[in-house]
């Protein structure tokens, strides 16, 4: 299968806030079947790029397309319905919902049960909820969280909350999955589980993009890496190419090694 037909593409994406240029005309091609890393120092614009691609921000310039369909102007919810899904850098779970229910929100958009079954005990609604709960539980198990479905997010340590956030993004079998710092706050064994999950997820038709500060994780799972600095790409390539790029070493990996 041609990896580039089902790619998420951005051409000349430029975004600024009140005169401050956050993204300076970026070209990206996130391909299906690959794990793409997006790295760069704090404030480089990684989350902003995600926000442009998912529709949370409207870039002043540039076009965004997935599998040839232009996405510009589509609101986030419409992009979600096309299977473009993300996780949030700052965990955005609803405190009023249990962990299982939070994950269920990742597939709620497929729900067919109407308003009547929201209020009345109709079998269709009950069946749908059961199915969603089962999918959510399975996603939680895949992420190494088999027993927390009935808890509320606030009862979990931050690392687990982040995994729940990822489970919510994964459960709907997205076609584009963008993870914003999925390993932040995870301990070593959680990170290892996450790595396994991400490897398993990578399939021929999934566009998987990972923003991450954990260099070991990025270097070990990514097929291609984009390095962003001050809203511009300084390098794009395989982990080996990026690791040996002198600019990258200077602005990013260099400072990382000094620490």
């Amino acid at each position: 299968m041609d990896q580039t037909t089902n790619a998420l593409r951005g051409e000349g994406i430029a975004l600024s806030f009140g005169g401050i240029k956050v993204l300076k005309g970026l070209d990206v091609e996130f391909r299906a079947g690959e794990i793409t890393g997006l790295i760069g120092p704090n404030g480089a614009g990684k989350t902003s790029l995600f926000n442009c691609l998912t529709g949370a921000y409207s870039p002043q310039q540039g076009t965004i397309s997935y599998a040839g369909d232009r996405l510009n102007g589509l609101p986030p919810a419409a992009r979600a319905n096309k299977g473009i899904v993300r996780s949030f850098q700052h965990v955005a779970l609803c405190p009023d919902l249990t962990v299982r229910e939070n994950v269920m929100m990742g597939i709620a958009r497929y729900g067919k049960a109407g308003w009547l079954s929201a209020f009345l005990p109709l079998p269709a609604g009950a069946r749908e909820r059961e199915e969603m709960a089962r999918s959510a539980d399975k996603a939680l198990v895949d992420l190494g969280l088999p027993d927390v479905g009935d808890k509320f997010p606030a009862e979990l340590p931050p690392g687990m909350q982040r995994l729940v956030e990822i489970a919510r993004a994964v459960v709907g079998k997205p076609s584009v999955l963008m993870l914003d710092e999925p390993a932040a706050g995870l301990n070593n064994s959680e990170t290892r589980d996450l790595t396994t999950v991400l490897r398993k997820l990578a399939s021929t038709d999934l566009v998987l993009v990972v923003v991450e500060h954990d260099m070991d994780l990025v270097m070990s799972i990514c097929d291609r890496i984009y390095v962003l600095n001050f809203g511009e790409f300084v390098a794009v390539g395989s982990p080996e190419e990026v690791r040996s790029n002198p600019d990258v070493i200077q602005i990013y990996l260099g400072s990382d090694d000094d620490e």
Partner: protein
Amino acid sequence: MSDQATHMTPDQTVLSRLSGVATSGVTTTVLVAALIFMPFLLGGSWTFTLGLCFANSIGVLAVSLLVRYGGEVSIGHTFFTALGAYSVGVLDVRYGISLWASVPLALLLGVTFGLLFAWPSRNLHGIYLAVTTLALALAVPEMINNFDALTGGYEGLYVSTPFIPGVSMGMQRYYVALVMLVIVCVAVARLRLSRQGMALLLAKTHPSAADAFGTRRVWARISIMGISGGIGALCGATLAFSGSTVSPGGFTFWQAIFLLVGSVVSFYGLSLPRVLIGGAFVTLVPQLLSASGAWIPVFYGLALLGMILLGHYMPRIRKAMAQKSEVA
């Protein structure tokens, strides 16, 4: 509680944990059972007042629902209660049609006008939305008087057609209100478990996350206003039947404020015992105020303030105490 939880389905666990106590279902059942027998123990006037409490509880629930699921405050819900009340009043007095038709009509009108109000105000939040709902409330008495051929103007309408033939009217006014309250509370409890209810909660706490998973903010706002408006109208319909008279005096701006206050003193609770506290407040306080001397309103103001502050700080105090005991 945890070993109790193992005997429950996940959904039951969710509901019981939300209401704080695992026994809340039991409490509600016992309460409803007690209320069923109340008319046999109480005099006619208390039965009548209790019926009004049930009706007002539905209104309090409508306001609390908007807070809990929409994150917004309304000081104009008398607009919806008036819609419902006049649906019942007009159909009864002018056309001799009973609740079978007028309650569904009330619900339909409440939902429709909730949606119609929500669309133009969809981008307003907090105090701006509240002030907009205020405009609704202020318009109500005027509109009632303008349509006096239908509404009876200041005179009002007297609802007297029985709903269940052969049962005394006093009993009907009580039990219809109780049944309506129970039905609405059960429906609202079910909403919590539904896909739509969960989406509303996510949209309230993390609108951008809801957006990213296919729930539009505008959808959330319009939906919750429709639901809250519909329940508000059911409150009005019940008030009309249980209170027997429908007149502009029942739908003043102050009444709208009282509904919000009732919601606050019940801590925005959505369970039957909680909304009943709010409903009792809405029903009894105006009666006591009008009958009492000059100082009593001040005491009520202070008591109200005390309750609100308690509700505001209680969770924090509890949290602080829990942390202390953890440290110890």
